[in-house]
C-alpha cells in the first residue's frame, strides 16, 4: 500500500520519523485509497442506477395494479396509455417537449434555476424548496382522463418520505397511495410501507365539495371519507404523510394542475 515503485530507492528503509517518509506514506495511502474508492464507485454506478430504476418501475407497476381494471385499459390503448408529462406547478400547465426522462428530483430541487423556495408558513411537507416543474403520470382513454399519478415527498419523523398518489378521474377520490421510499423507525413509522396501511387510503376523498383539501390522518379510527387511520406509536410519521399529501395537493403543489384538469373535464 505504501507505493514503493515510484519512490526513490531506499524510501522504505528510511526511518519512520523521517518527514519525507511521513509525508510519502500519508500521500501514498491517500492516493491509493482515493483511486480504489473512485474506481469502485465508477464501476458499480451503472448497476446501482439499474437497481433504482427497477425499483421505481416496480412501485409504479404495483400502483397501477392497485386500481382494478387499469392494466386492461393501458393494454387496450397501447403504449399511449400511460403518459408522463412535465407540469409547471405554478401555472398547472403541461410543459411541451420537456425532457422527462432526464428529470432528477434532488438535482432540480437544489439547483438555482430549477428550484422554487417554499414559504415557511406554507411548507407543510418541510422541504424548503421544490422543483418548479415536476413530471406526473396520466392514464387517458379517448382523450378522457382516467387516472392522475402525482409524485409527493415530505419529512416524516427521521427521513424524507417519497410517495405516489393516484387520483381517479374525478380528481377527488384516491385510487391508491404508495410509499416509494422512507427511512422511518422500523416496526413503527416504517409501517407506512405496509400494504395494509396504504390500502386505507383507497377510496378516500381528498377534497370537499368546494375543492378545499381536507384529507387527514387521524388517531383512533377514521370516521369519514376524509380521514385515514393513523399508526399508533408513529404519530409524527402519520402526520408527516398527511401534511405531505396536503401540501402537494394544495395550491403551492399540484393544486393549479388539478383545478385546470377539473375545469377542462367539466
Amino acid at each position, binding site marked *: 500500500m505504501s507505493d514503493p515503485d515510484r519512490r526513490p530507492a531506499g524510501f522504505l528503509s528510511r526511518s519512520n520519523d523521517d518527514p519525507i517518509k511521513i509525508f510519502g506514506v500519508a500521500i501514498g495511502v491517500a492516493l491509493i485509497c482515493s483511486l480504489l474508492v473512485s474506481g469502485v464507485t465508477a464501476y*458499480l454506478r451503472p448497476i446501482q442506477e439499474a437497481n433504482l430504476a427497477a425499483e421505481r418501475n416496480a412501485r409504479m407497476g404495483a400502483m397501477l395494479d392497485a386500481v382494478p381494471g387499469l392494466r386492461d385499459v393501458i393494454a387496450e390503448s397501447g403504449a399511449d396509455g400511460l403518459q408522463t408529462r412535465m407540469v409547471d406547478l405554478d401555472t398547472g400547465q403541461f410543459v411541451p417537449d420537456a425532457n422527462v426522462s432526464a428529470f432528477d428530483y434532488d438535482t432540480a430541487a437544489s439547483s438555482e434555476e430549477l428550484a422554487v423556495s417554499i414559504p415557511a408558513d406554507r411548507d407543510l411537507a418541510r422541504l424548503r424548496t421544490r422543483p418548479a416543474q415536476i413530471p406526473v403520470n396520466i392514464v387517458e382513454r379517448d382523450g378522457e382522463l382516467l387516472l392522475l399519478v402525482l409524485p409527493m415527498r415530505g419529512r416524516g419523523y427521521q427521513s424524507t418520505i417519497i410517495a405516489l398518489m393516484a387520483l381517479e378521474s374525478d380528481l377527488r377520490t384516491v385510487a391508491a397511495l404508495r410509499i416509494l421510499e422512507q427511512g422511518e423507525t422500523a416496526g413503527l413509522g416504517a409501517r407506512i410501507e405496509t400494504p395494509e396501511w396504504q390500502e386505507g387510503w383507497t377510496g378516500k376523498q381528498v377534497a370537499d365539495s368546494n375543492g378545499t383539501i381536507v384529507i387527514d390522518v387521524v388517531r383512533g379510527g377514521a370516521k369519514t371519507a376524509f380521514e385515514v387511520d393513523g399508526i399508533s406509536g408513529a404519530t409524527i410519521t402519520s402526520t408527516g404523510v398527511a401534511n405531505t399529501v396536503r401540501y402537494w395537493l394544495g395550491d403551492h403543489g399540484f393544486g393549479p394542475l388539478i383545478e385546470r384538469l377539473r375545469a377542462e373535464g367539466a
Partner: protein
Amino acid sequence: MALREIRSALVTSNPVTQQILGICSALAVSTSVATAFTMSVALTAVLCSSNVIISSIRRHIPPSVRLIVQITIIASLVIVTDQVLQAYAFELSRQLSIFVALIVTNCLVLGRAESFAIRNPVLPSLVDGFANALGYSLILLLVGTVRELLGQGTWFGITIFPLASDGGWFEPIGLMSLAPSAFFVIGFLVWFIRSWRRDLVERLPYGVRGQEAGDG
C-alpha cells in the same frame, strides 16, 4: 491457536459485551435479524481486510500519522463495502441506509487496528479481525433476535408470534423497535455473562467504601 482466538472473542473478550466496542451501530441496526446479519457480514469484511492491510504495512506506518493512515484505509474499505451492497444487495442496503457508512466510526474496527494489527503479523491479524467480527456478529444477531421477536413477532421476517392485528395473540412491544431497547438487551447480556463467568468481572480500580468495610 486460531480456534482458541475465536472462542475467546465470542465470550471472554467479546468486543461488544466485554470490551464495550461498537455499541453505537449495535443499537441502530439490531431492530431486525436481517439488517443485523447484513451489518455483521459488512463489518466482518471491513474488519478482516482493514486488519490485514494495516498489519501488512505496519512497519512503514509512521507513529505520528498512524491514526490518519488507519482511518483513511478503514474509511475507503467502508465506502467500497457500501457501494458493493448498493449494487448487489440493494434492498438490504436500503434498510441499513447510513449505518453501513457509519462502520467507519465503529470503534471496533479502529480499536482492533490500533491495539492488534499495528503490532502483529498478517495472519494473526486476520484471525483477530475475524474472531472479533464473529463476536460482534453473535451479539448483534442475539440482540436482533430479541428485538425483532418482541417488537414485530417475527424472526428473519418469518412470523413466529402471530400478531394480534392479524388475528393472532401477540401484541408487539413498540419499545423494542426503538434504540433504547438495544441498550436494555445488551445490558442484560452483559449482566448475564458476568454472573455466569465471575472471572470476567474486572477488579475495581479503586475501593468502594462500603465494600472495603465489608472486606475488612
